[in-house]
């Protein structure tokens, strides 16, 4: 079936949805081959020091145990830090599993037991005797603020710019301002907790060749990492990730189960799977605890004159992980006097790792809560204050926006939410014995694009095959890319197959940062376009072609025909072209961001989040009874999967503001709630009325699709909107996340 409507813009259900809900979709830890061995990782139980002895004798003697790998018997591997780097590596010296006897953090992998069954490997692991020499350590950010220092710049700062230079004279402008608002904000460690456990199955193919099923957000990222460390030809390392059960950033870097699975497979020349248990997911990468301070000053008309935002974040002792936390306020609010600072405190933990809207969700908490406070100081409606300070251009860097329909987000969001029913007076609204509060906040997330390649093939049967090494981390990439390719060639969805998640396919970067549609979608579009051109040329080359003398602009591609716009009777079918062509017709194309053009603009998705809470002051219980996010993110390729992205982000916003935290015992240097029973993310009973609006936004600069990506923007505005709603309900401004009973009773 084919309508005249383009597929882009239609709410098409996930093409792989049925496979996933019926359990047919196979994940990295589910590929079974004869003779498969199972690895179980032993993690350090101390936080810092040295392994003084490690006795594997008893474990190795158990029938069915094949080998126990430790720093003492691991193979000799690559020497240089560069070789352990990856596409998301911060500046510094990447962690090397089983490298030496040194312990750098609690939970560090220190041995791999390989056995014929998983259960045996796990049991054997309990028989390995390890002795340590402990050293003093520090894992508490608040206790170590005096050690804060500037981050070292590196390759990663290309996508994550350090704070802009100060403008004007902040201190003077702030002192002179009519109204002032300030705050100190804090959130602790958070972990990604994707549903799928981290797992790698490495198939040893002989002669240095490997096929690797990996839980990752970048097949080529894993491929390069393995090739570099183990000295293998890249073409001999094939990394496959057909389905990924959630990533949220945790798969942006190759994790240690990949390293250990490959190492064991190469050493034993056998297939080896290493699956990490849930608690082991807490032993690599997390959102770093961050302390923020803000001081905003405005004149009597509400015009913001002075902005100061500073952040101190945790990093590890071996890498300088950074986030963009403090750059956002001046992108949103055009103040003349600004002072932005960002510092790191290295602690004895693993390096932090990008986690959904890294930095953006952190920064917006402080910025948008301070804006709410400022609105109260000025006695101006919070939306009105944001409109008074609406940035028509991005004054932080002095560039116009490629597009920005945030104003429409405010208008349409407020209308649908019923913002006008809000009595601004705190504690003025009630329902039964509960206090009711309305809060709102702005969200922003930069729209990035990276280079990527894609291949498009028209098969002999007239079907379109497109491919890219990109993963689908559950966001709907498969569906969206299929829509883009189908539209480009005018084919129905059923005639198009998108292959992905395989490093042997054309290059795609890691999947994150909301840049996949922009990056891979553009590559698919470019490959489709090239194929279109090739087909048209072949159509014209046919003897007595009805399209002779027409230009590509004068034809449409529809249902497998190339048709003249002026005279629809003039047409050539794909079948005609294929009949004369020997075999399939193929193009491979690279899409590069138009750097020169893009550099002249700031590019960002925006949102306005609206929240209603009920607060039971006797019990301290907060319920988010209603929430709505209005999003301006350019062209929405698939409103259904995009809506799911925004809803998922909003749920996470509720989680961030009210539920989740990784609890650390600083005396032990250890995370205390490494399971989903005690790492509280929202359950269905926590979620009530939620809604999403996409406002129309045309963007002809950002990329050919006019689409900005929606992976992060859904989470950014929600947490401060909830905190602001709690203030409206209770009169209490609580700046520490998650907001607990403790602070509301």
């Amino acid at each position: 079936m084919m309508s005249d409507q383009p597929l882009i813009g239609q709410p098409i259900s996930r093409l792989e949805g049925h496979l996933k809900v019926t359990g047919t979709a196979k994940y990295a830890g589910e590929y079974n081959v004869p003779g498969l061995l199972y690895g179980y990782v032993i993690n350090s139980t101390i936080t810092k020091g040295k392994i003084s002895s490690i006795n594997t004798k008893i474990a190795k003697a158990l029938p069915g145990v094949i080998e126990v790998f430790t720093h003492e018997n691991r193979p000799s591997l690559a020497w240089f830090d560069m070789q352990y780097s990856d596409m998301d590596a911060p500046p510094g010296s990447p962690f090397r599993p089983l490298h030496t006897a040194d312990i750098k953090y609690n939970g560090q992998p220190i041995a791999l037991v390989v056995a014929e069954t998983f259960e045996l490997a796990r049991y054997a692991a309990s028989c390995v005797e390890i002795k340590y020499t402990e050293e003093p350590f520090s894992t508490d950010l608040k206790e170590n603020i005096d050690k804060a220092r500037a981050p070292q710049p590196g390759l990663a700062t290309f996508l994550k710019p350090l704070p802009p230079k100060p403008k004007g004279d902040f201190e003077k402008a702030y002192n002179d301002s009519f109204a002032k608002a300030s705050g100190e904000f804090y959130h602790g460690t958070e972990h990604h907790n994707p549903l799928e456990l981290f797992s790698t199955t490495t198939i040893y193919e002989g002669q240095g060749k490997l096929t690797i099923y990996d839980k990752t957000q970048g097949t080529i990222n894993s491929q390069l990492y393995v090739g570099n460390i183990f000295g293998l030809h890249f073409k001999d390392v094939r990394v496959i990730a057909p389905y990924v059960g959630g990533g949220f950033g945790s798969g942006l870097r190759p994790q240690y189960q990949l390293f250990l699975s490959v190492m064991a497979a190469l050493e034993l020349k056998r297939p080896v799977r290493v699956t990490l248990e849930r608690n082991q997911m807490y032993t690599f990468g997390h959102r770093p605890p961050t302390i923020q301070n803000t001081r905003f000053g405005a004149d009597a008309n509400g015009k913001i004159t002075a902005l100061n935002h500073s952040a101190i974040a945790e990093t590890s002792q071996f890498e300088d992980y950074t986030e963009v936390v403090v750059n956002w306020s001046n992108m949103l609010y055009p103040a003349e006097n600004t002072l932005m600072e960002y510092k790191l405190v290295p602690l004895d933990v693993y390096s932090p790792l990008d986690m959904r809207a890294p930095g953006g969700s952190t920064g917006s908490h402080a910025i948008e809560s301070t804006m709410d406070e400022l609105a109260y100081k000025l006695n101006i409606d919070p939306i009105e204050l944001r409109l008074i300070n609406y940035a028509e251009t991005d004054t932080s860097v002095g560039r116009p926006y490629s597009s920005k329909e945030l104003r429409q987000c405010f208008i349409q969001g407020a209308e649908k939410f019923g913002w006008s029913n809000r009595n601004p007076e705190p504690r003025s609204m009630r329902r039964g014995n509960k206090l009711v509060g309305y809060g709102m906040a702005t969200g922003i997330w930069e729209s990035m694009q990276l280079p990527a390649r894609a291949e498009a093939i028209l098969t002999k049967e007239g079907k379109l095959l497109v491919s890219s090494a990109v993963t689908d981390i559950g966001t709907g990439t498969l569906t969206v890319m299929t829509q883009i390719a189908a539209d480009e060639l005018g084919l129905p969805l059923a005639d198009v197959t998108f292959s992905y998640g395989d490093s042997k396919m054309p290059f795609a970067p890691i999947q994150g940062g909301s840049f996949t549609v922009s990056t891979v979608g553009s590559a698919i579009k470019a490959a489709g376009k090239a194929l279109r051109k090739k087909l048209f040329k072949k159509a014209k080359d046919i003897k007595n072609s009805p399209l002779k003398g027409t230009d590509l602009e004068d034809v449409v591609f529809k249902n497998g025909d190339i048709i003249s716009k002026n005279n629809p009777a003039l047409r050539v079918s794909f079948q005609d072209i294929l009949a004369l062509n020997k075999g399939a017709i193929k193009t491979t194309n690279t899409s590069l961001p138009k750097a020169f053009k893009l550099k002249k603009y700031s590019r960002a998705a925006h949102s306005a989040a609206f929240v209603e809470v009920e607060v039971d002051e006797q019990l301290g219980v907060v319920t988010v009874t209603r929430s709505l996010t209005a999003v301006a993110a350019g062209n929405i390729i698939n409103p259904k999967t995009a809506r799911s992205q925004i809803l998922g982000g909003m749920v996470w916003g509720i989680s961030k503001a009210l539920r989740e935290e990784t609890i650390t015992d600083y005396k032990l240097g250890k995370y205390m709630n490494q399971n989903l029973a005690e790492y509280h993310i929202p359950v269905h009973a926590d979620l009530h009325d939620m809604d999403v609006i996409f406002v129309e936004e045309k963007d002809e600069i950002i990329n050919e699709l006019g689409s900005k990506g929606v992976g992060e923007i859904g989470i950014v505005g929600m947490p401060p909107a909830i905190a602001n709603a709690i203030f409206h309900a209770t009169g209490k401004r609580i700046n520490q996340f998650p907001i607990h009973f403790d602070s509301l009773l």
Partner: protein
Amino acid sequence: MNQFQYVRPAETSGAIKSVALDANAHFLAGGTNLVDLMKMGIVTPERLVDINNLPLKKIENIQGHLRIGALVTNTQVAENKFVKENFPLLSMAINAGASPQLRNMATTGGNLLQRTRCPYFFDTTMPCNKRVPGSGCGALEGYNRMHAIFGASDKCIAVNPSDMNVALTALNAFVHVSGPKAARTIPFADFHRLPGDHPEQDTTLQKNELITSIDIPTAPFSKNVHYLKVRDRSSYAFALVSAAVALHIENNTIKDVRLAMGGVAHKPWRLTATETFLKGKTVSEDTFKQAAQIAMEGAKAYEHNKFKLKLAPNTLIQALKTASGLTV
């Protein structure tokens, strides 16, 4: 997980004999707690005696007196018509706990024996007197948000995680046990222990004894009851504080009352003095506030659970108000 023997006897006496064969043997019922503990190396039995074939699966109404077999699942109890009509407090408490999947597997006897969720107990690399006597208490000076405010000792400040136990203690239940010696009956209030110097012992159950059933005597608590559980999310989280309230009200006067709290002590915490205070009083918010003050006598908080000193009385007041029909 260590290797272990697994047997599945068909009779209670056989099960008891079988468990006595090994010093380190455990009964296995629903497995919702024990299997987790085994995976984490907290419990390492050499023999598992699966009791699921034993004839302990009946709910009986013996002239208004309720008898629940040890193997009746939590779901079966909560959904039982007689229970819902005569002991609605028990249904409410059970449904406040865990998730439907867990309640479908978990048994009545097993629920009585579930271990604490103290994170120091749950991690074999941490000090914990309950897991390894003499190794110290990590929670005392560590992270203790979930922990006890009543009846703790310097050896252990963990809390009992069960919701069902809170209702059962309020309902004056009895626990029937069989063992190598004669069968005996333990009043519910004496079944769980305070930690004292032996936090490794959660209960007064003797070695190789098996819970066979729970009895709940006839009581006039079919109407004015409430179980209120406050936790870090709306479902599938352990209680920070919970309150079980059963009132028998006639002409606005409290004729009889039973009160217990969860999430506050090493055992389900019965509030006998508060009950005595309330008996004969007229229903009013003021009375309930006074009652809550009495309930909190002797409470002691630690670094991270000070909020419980406010949350506990507020929870009790709100549960009393709801149970008695006062607008909350």
